[in-house]
């Protein structure tokens, strides 16, 4: 969550929400959370576990890229 929060401060485009998975079981189910931390970006790119900053950024940029047909 730390990187996500810092990215939110860096850019007005970024919103970072930390979700306590056990308190929101329906959300956790709909995002198929089985291991934590689980990160979901724009409901498109997801991964489990902490990533170094450069790889986290790549995931953000992948989520930001236009959909390819």
């Amino acid at each position, binding site marked *: *969550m*730390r*990187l*996500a*929060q*810092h*990215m*939110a*401060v*860096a*850019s*007005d*485009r*970024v*919103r*970072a*929400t*930390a*979700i*306590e*998975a*056990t*308190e*929101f079981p329906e*959300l*956790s189910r709909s*995002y198929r*959370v089985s291991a*934590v*931390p*689980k*990160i*979901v*970006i*724009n*409901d498109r790119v997801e991964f489990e576990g902490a990533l170094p*900053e*450069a790889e986290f*950024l790549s995931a*953000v*940029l992948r*989520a*930001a890229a236009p959909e390819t047909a």
Partner: protein
Amino acid sequence: MAFLSDRDQAAVRQEFEKLAGPVKLVVFSQELEAADLCRQNEALVREVAELSPDKVTVEVLNPAIDRDRAAVYGVERVPAIVVEGARDYGIRFLGIPGGYEFSNLIDSMIVASSGVPSLTAETRTALEGLAGDIDIKVFSTPT
């Protein structure tokens, strides 16, 4: 009931020496939705705020009553916390930030207080180039 031990309080006080400016914690509570969790969340936030009363303020909103504000913040579930510095940077916590998320709450307050993120120049440049909105959800558990 106190959430933070004396030792936790001392640690947070020390971290709060890094607060560069005012921080507002906007708490969303709705008794009818999740009474116990909302009460605990609110109590935790107030305990945290009391550790730096000159810099940290708390506002409690009920999304069923303060609908317009909840919509502006994009908060649809409770308990929730918005961490604001000079402005709303988009930092949200859904659920009580316990365990590991507690450290993130404190860290988010410090970065929101300054508006200066600890990120590499490469990351900051890439984020400045974003053309669309990015929503990052981080699911975690307290332990």
